[in-house]
């Protein structure tokens, strides 16, 4: 097995494998996981590759243990990751909250499959997008990014680690079965072209060090276990010294900072691509495996003279609120194809505040939309807009 972490070159691999290669390329050296379709290939690739690059692969007893081990390894200083799908993602929820409140950098990959319950283990859905946002108890902000191809599985996993290291929090890669199992060309650049962010470490005296005191970035600078700072890390509400404080004031201070950490840094976190937004009458808002049929539909519609643009959300959480608000003033309607019965479309609708129509093209899962279904959805939207105008 190669001891090269970055396999520079052209590869014919699937999205799950590309995800693992992205993780290795950015310095992930710890993987804790549990077998689950359709994410297993991520774990299998890591099991094959990690020992040779001096990293650690552990198959844990369940997904709860997997994410707990990942958090533990991260506190030891490792860049750590786990991958899973719906049922395992559900089991990880409590630990995701712990990761957020203890500000632990790590990456969780969810290769979404049809749910609820055991659902469709081998087939696609985008049913966990709201679970990614709100699945753990309590109020929080989270970062989730959504790749739409094997190449993006590679690129976005790198970005997920860099976001995790920058903002000190778990970052979710919300992939899906189609993206995970698509087998195509993935280009891995030379190692020196890969942007690698490493967490900041404290430098001051351990005696006067305040672990959770932050500057205007709201991001704490925390040590690893064994660094000599001997800090106490707890899931209890804590103050800037890291001491538990069971009162409303401590809760308010800690919560406000954790929320601001994401909200005030939103511009750094958000990433999207836009196509023909200028003067567009209708904008397709899309992410994950829905992107490709949506792009194909957009091109066909434009050839037919329909003025349609497209917004591809690379970062799904935090949501691109300001962008949608701004667009809602200019466009007539948003069309949202999703492999669920309306999740991200609810956010689009919320942010457009009645200023533009939001039309969901739902899909129950087991596959993705055909371009034709997206075309039909846009045409349906045009009819809705037409009858709205007639009524006026």
């Amino acid at each position, binding site marked *: 097995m190669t001891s090269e972490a970055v396999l520079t070159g052209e590869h014919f691999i699937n999205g799950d494998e590309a995800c693992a290669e992205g993780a290795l390329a950015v310095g992930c050296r710890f993987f804790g996981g549990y077998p689950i379709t359709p994410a297993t290939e991520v774990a299998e690739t890591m099991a094959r590759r990690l020992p040779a690059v001096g990293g*650690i692969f552990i198959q844990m*007893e369940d997904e709860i243990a997997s994410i*707990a081990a990942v958090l533990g*390894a991260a506190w030891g200083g490792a860049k750590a990751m786990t991958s899973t799908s719906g049922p395992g993602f559900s089991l990880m929820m409590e630990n995701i909250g712990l990761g957020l409140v203890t500000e632990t950098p790590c990456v969780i990959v969810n290769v979404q499959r049809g749910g609820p319950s055991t659902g469709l283990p081998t087939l696609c859905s985008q049913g966990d997008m709201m679970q990614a946002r709100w699945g753990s108890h309590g109020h929080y902000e989270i970062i989730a990014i959504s790749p739409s191809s094997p190449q993006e599985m590679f690129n976005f996993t790198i970005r997920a680690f860099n976001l995790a290291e920058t903002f000190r929090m778990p970052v979710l890669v919300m992939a899906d079965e189609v993206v995970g199992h698509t087998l195509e060309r993935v280009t891995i650049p030379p190692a020196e072209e890969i942007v690698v962010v490493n967490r900041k470490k404290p430098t001051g005296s351990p005696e006067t060090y305040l672990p959770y005191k932050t500057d205007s970035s709201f991001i704490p600078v925390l040590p690893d276990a064994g660094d000599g700072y001997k800090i106490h890390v707890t*899931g209890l509400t804590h103050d800037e010294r890291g001491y538990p404080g069971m009162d409303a004031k401590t809760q308010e201070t800690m919560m406000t900072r954790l929320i601001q950490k994401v909200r005030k840094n939103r511009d750094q976190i958000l990433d999207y691509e836009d196509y023909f937004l200028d003067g567009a009458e209708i904008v397709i808002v899309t992410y994950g495996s829905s992107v490709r049929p949506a792009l194909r539909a957009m091109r066909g519609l434009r050839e037919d003279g329909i003025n349609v643009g497209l917004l591809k959300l690379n970062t799904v959480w935090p949501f691109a609120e300001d962008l949608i608000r701004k667009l809602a003033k200019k466009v007539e309607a948003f069309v949202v194809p999703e492999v669920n019965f309306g999740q991200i479309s609810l956010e689009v609708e919320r942010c457009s505040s009645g200023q533009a129509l939001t039309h969901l093209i739902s899909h129950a899962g087991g596959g993705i939309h055909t371009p034709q279904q997206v075309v039909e959805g846009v045409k349906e939207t045009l009819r809705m807009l037409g009858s709205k105008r007639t009524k006026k």
Partner: protein
Amino acid sequence: MPAKDYLRQRFFPQIWCPGCGHGIIMGNMIRAIDQLGLEKNEVVVVSGIGCSSRMPGYVDFHSLHTLHGRALAFAMGVKMGRPELTVIVPMGDGDAAAIGGNHLIHAARRNIDLTAIIMNNSIYGMTGGQFSPMTPFGDKGTTAPSGTIDHAFDIVELAKGAGASFVARTTTYHVKEMIKIIARAIKHKGFSMVEVMSQCPTYYGRKNKLGSAVDMMNSYKDGTTSIGSKKKAEHPELIERGVFLEEERPEYSASYSALVKKSQG
């Protein structure tokens, strides 16, 4: 170094009730670490949730207070990532044997070099006295007002069966024995499990009319005996104390290092 120098007195007052046995275990864990001459910076204490699990906050090592039942899974990540660190995992009986039972048996099976100290007070104390998987059959808790019909785990047998390579039991009455056992457990290369019987006079004691903390500690003196003693032969109902198992077996993080060497050729 005196035990008090290992305490984070800034975290005091601690939350344990008067008469609770957990402080005795904390003190003896500190004495064991001191005897072994470990540096504070080499020790990580990982816990879950419960009365026992508040202990890491009070000791001046690197301390991680995680989720109910999950401490061993968390500790697994710490140890694999930083095998040079000594990782100690204090747990409660509900924490270790109910919600965390799966992690306990798998950590034991892997023989990962962690020291699990199971502070067994036979009750869920923090939530106010519900029966646990280590509450003796027939004893009462707020969720077993007529006595529990659940059978209790013998955690020593469980750990042995699951593959732990060091298994011991002691009590808060037997402090000198406890220090020796904890020190041996920490030194042992592999998964070590030490059950410490610890009194909860507030909930378990009161609910089952076991008297004061002193009465409960006396019951440990009278109700236990050293492994294989003559007393045990005469009184088979006595609970045995001591080291039940201490074996050298391939340790997980060492086996992993060997695997890495092999993969790198």
